[in-house]
């Protein structure tokens, strides 16, 4: 009982140091909880329900990221715990001197850690609930999602997960702390706050070797990761990504651990640089920080890489959606997947309501050809490594010029005019590079065979067509007389109707009845298409933004805590410099350089990681990022 009492008193006495420690843990619990509670957020549940997707999938999709978040959170806790141990060694030394045995001090330390941990855990969960609720509201408002009445939610899953995770961390931390008390001699504990962290002067060649090894590990990680992403059977759940994550962590760690030392040891050979103002001091200070905080830097670096990658991804995704909007239906309603013979029946149904007269109608049918995508590009351009999701064996369908132009006009676009023996190619949601290859081939007089006759490609249209009609690949636009020679591409007729009064539930029901009667087809409306698009957008953007903010917060707290602890620890050095006659200006500049550099290094490496990841994704998506 006495230990409990002492532990409690200790906490109260070293309040400032404990405050830093405590709030770091609260913050980390909040981050961990919020991240894992995403799938239970009412807004997310609602979005998933509307999209007809099981909301548990979110947790699975974020599996990779949650691995990193766990790593970062653990690093935060360990780091602040190291800080508190360093600050308090002397106090423990005093207990030992007063006759308490080492086991007792270790036990007391263990109790303290658990006590602080438990309180921080509760507080962290509460702030996590508030924080994630507010984030939900903010993003729901931004994305114009109607959010449910209940904003705040206690995610049982996340509470339990956080509990288990932190219990493990704290047991680890407590054991580490107790171990560090029993390992040190009493004398070293007593002078602990006056001695500096041991400075390890490293052998030059060892540094070079370790540097090369860590670069090699990074490169290997890049290579495996790139291949796993830019691959036709890309699978986010691929276990190889755990290996990639581990390689990235190890490689980055190695880079921070030795890379800078190597660069600085070269800089130190330049006299002009070395003996200028506080340069040497600043460099060594950075080096010391980087060396003793490699774990923190690695965490920040990995986080930043994830943030940069996902921000670029979200921006690219937004622009993709914009492109899709350009492919919206020109008329209010469309019926898809019909046989040409079904048209008469549907037209009758569409025209049946005198209260909502049919204004305009369009029909367009796709026909089967023997042309495959690989015929559209020059032979040397059918590079197998080009785009993993584009298969060159797809055959292209064709549409008649007059039907095609009618749709274009309905969209307010100029018609495409074809001379005799000439066809056009409408590219679908295709990649930019592929379109360019077709254009290149067309420029060299590409000709294609359709039903025994030869046609030259006169034009390549890359503006988006109606996306429910055009295939993802490409479509040939051929003269009307050529269509007569071709067979319809299965149920490939699309009808479009425009009404005076827009939406019409009676019409929708009638269309459904007709669809059921003929046994094929599917109706959709302009509004429904827009809503679907919007839902996809929300489904990606909401968790995207949510995770982004949490990662940013984690990264900020990692670097911020680091700088805070650094300031507390090195005040003595700056006093020393001031005594030696360093001007305030010089000292401030040195601190500024240290902070800037400290921020810059993880950012620079993170940008490199992101570039590799993004180029792999770009490859996967055929250059559309």
């Amino acid at each position, binding site marked *: 009982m006495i230990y409990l009492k002492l532990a409690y008193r200790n906490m109260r006495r070293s309040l400032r140091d404990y405050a830093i420690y405590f709030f770091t843990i609260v913050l980390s619990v909040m981050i961990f909880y919020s991240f894992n509670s995403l799938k239970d957020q009412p807004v997310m549940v609602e979005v998933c329900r509307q999209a007809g997707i099981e909301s548990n999938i979110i947790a699975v999709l974020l599996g990779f990221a949650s691995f990193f978040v766990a790593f970062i959170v653990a690093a935060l806790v360990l780091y602040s715990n190291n800080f508190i141990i360093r600050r308090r060694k002397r106090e423990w030394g005093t207990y030992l001197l007063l006759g308490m045995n080492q086991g007792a001090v270790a036990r007391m330390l263990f109790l303290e850690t658990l006590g602080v941990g438990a309180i921080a855990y509760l507080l962290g969960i509460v702030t996590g609930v508030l924080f994630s609720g507010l984030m939900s509201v903010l993003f729901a408002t931004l994305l114009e999602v109607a959010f449910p009445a209940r904003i705040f939610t206690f995610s049982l899953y996340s509470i339990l997960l956080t509990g288990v995770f932190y219990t493990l961390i704290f047991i680890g931390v407590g054991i580490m702390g107790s171990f560090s008390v029993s390992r040190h001699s009493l004398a070293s504990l007593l002078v602990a706050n*006056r001695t*500096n962290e*041991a*400075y390890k*002067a490293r052998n030059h060649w060892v540094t070079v070797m370790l540097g090369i090894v860590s670069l090699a590990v990074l490169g290997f990680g890049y290579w495996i990761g790139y291949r796993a992403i830019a691959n036709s059977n890309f699978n986010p759940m691929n276990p190889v990504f755990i290996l990639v994550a581990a390689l990235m962590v190890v490689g980055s760690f190695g880079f921070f651990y030795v890379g800078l030392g190597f660069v600085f040891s070269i800089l130190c050979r330049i*006299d*002009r640089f*070395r*003996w*200028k*103002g*506080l*340069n*040497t*001091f600043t460099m*060594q*200070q950075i*080096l*010391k920080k980087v060396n003793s905080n490699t774990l923190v830097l690695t965490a920040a670096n990995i986080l930043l890489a994830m943030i940069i990658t996902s921000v670029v991804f979200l921006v690219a995704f937004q622009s993709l959606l914009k492109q899709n909007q350009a492919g919206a239906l020109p008329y209010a309603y469309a019926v898809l997947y019909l046989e040409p013979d079904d048209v008469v029946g549907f037209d009758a149904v569409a025209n049946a309501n005198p209260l909502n007269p049919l204004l305009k109608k369009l029909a367009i049918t796709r026909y089967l050809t023997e042309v495959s995508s690989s015929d559209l590009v020059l032979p040397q351009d059918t590079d197998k490594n080009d785009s993993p999701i584009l298969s060159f064996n797809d055959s292209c369908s064709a549409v008649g010029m007059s039907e095609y132009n009618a749709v274009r006009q309905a969209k307010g676009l100029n018609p495409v005019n074809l001379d005799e023996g000439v066809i056009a190619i409408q590219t679908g949601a295709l990649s930019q590079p592929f379109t360019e290859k077709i254009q290149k081939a067309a420029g060299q007089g590409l000709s294609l065979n359709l039903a025994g006759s030869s046609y030259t490609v006169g034009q390549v249209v890359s503006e988006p067509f109606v996306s429910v009609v055009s295939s993802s690949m490409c479509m040939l636009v051929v003269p009307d007389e050529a269509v007569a020679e071709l067979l319809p591409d299965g149920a490939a007729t699309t009808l479009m109707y425009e009404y005076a009064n827009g939406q019409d539930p009676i019409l929708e029901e009638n269309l459904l009845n007709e669809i059921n009667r003929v046994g094929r087809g599917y109706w959709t409306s302009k509004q429904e298409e827009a809503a679907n698009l919007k839902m996809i957008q929300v489904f990606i953007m909401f968790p995207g933004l949510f995770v982004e903010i949490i990662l940013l917060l984690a990264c900020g707290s990692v670097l911020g805590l680091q700088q805070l602890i650094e300031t507390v620890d090195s005040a003595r*050095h700056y006093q*020393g*410099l*001031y*005594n*030696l*006659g*360093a*001007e*305030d200006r*010089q000292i401030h500049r040195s601190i500024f350089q240290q902070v800037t550099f400290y921020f810059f290094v993880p950012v620079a490496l993170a940008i490199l990681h992101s570039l590799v990841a993004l180029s792999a994704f770009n490859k996967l998506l055929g250059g559309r990022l």
Partner: protein
Amino acid sequence: MESILQISDLTKVYGFRGNHYPALNGLSLGVGKGEFLGVMGPSGSGKTTLLNIIATIDRGSRGVVMINGQDTQRMRRGDLTRFRREHLGFIFQDYNLLDTLTLRENICLPLSIANQTPAEIKARLSSVTQTFGLHDVLDKFPAQVSGGQKQRAAAARAIISNPTMVLADEPTGALDSSSAKVLLQTLEKMNQSLGITILMVTHDATAASYCNRIVFLKDGRIISELRRAAQQPRRAFFDQILSVVALMGEKEAE
């Protein structure tokens, strides 16, 4: 003799709201060029306060401190920094070497702070390394050398910028007796052959016996002063110091 330091009627009061406690109480002191002055006194006599004020790290509550003809009590912070850099060198009990820098870098720090050229720095460095016999350990870190070597490096750093006066705060406090002896002999040599003015605070009579004048502080003022006569052996001076210290102790006991 040309005066380097002239302190008159210096008072320093700590505390606030009626809870005052004077650390220095109307102290006056003059130090001439080329002197090796020792300041002795029991704990709480105001030694460290006096040294901090002379070092321009602290300010007095009243009084004048003239160093090389300039009143440091009236200077602004920025001017003080330059003044300290140009006129003062420091040796501290705990060395105050930066643990991340090699001894070479530590010793040269005052010069690189003052933006001297690499050539000048090299020239100055080689002259002080010779004086202090540090040649073999220049590229080691403070953690890798002995206490005596650390303190000699600190002394080298103190004089590398050719200061008007070197201030030493218990420089032998953390050293074993043989290292202390080497350091004190070095200080003596600095004083005698380079003509550097040294002001050393100490409570160790042996260390004090290397000085050529000693002032004894108590309760914030000078209560006694000893001057080493020309050609007086150090042993005799040491006995003289001990008797003053004993006398001060007796007064205390009464």
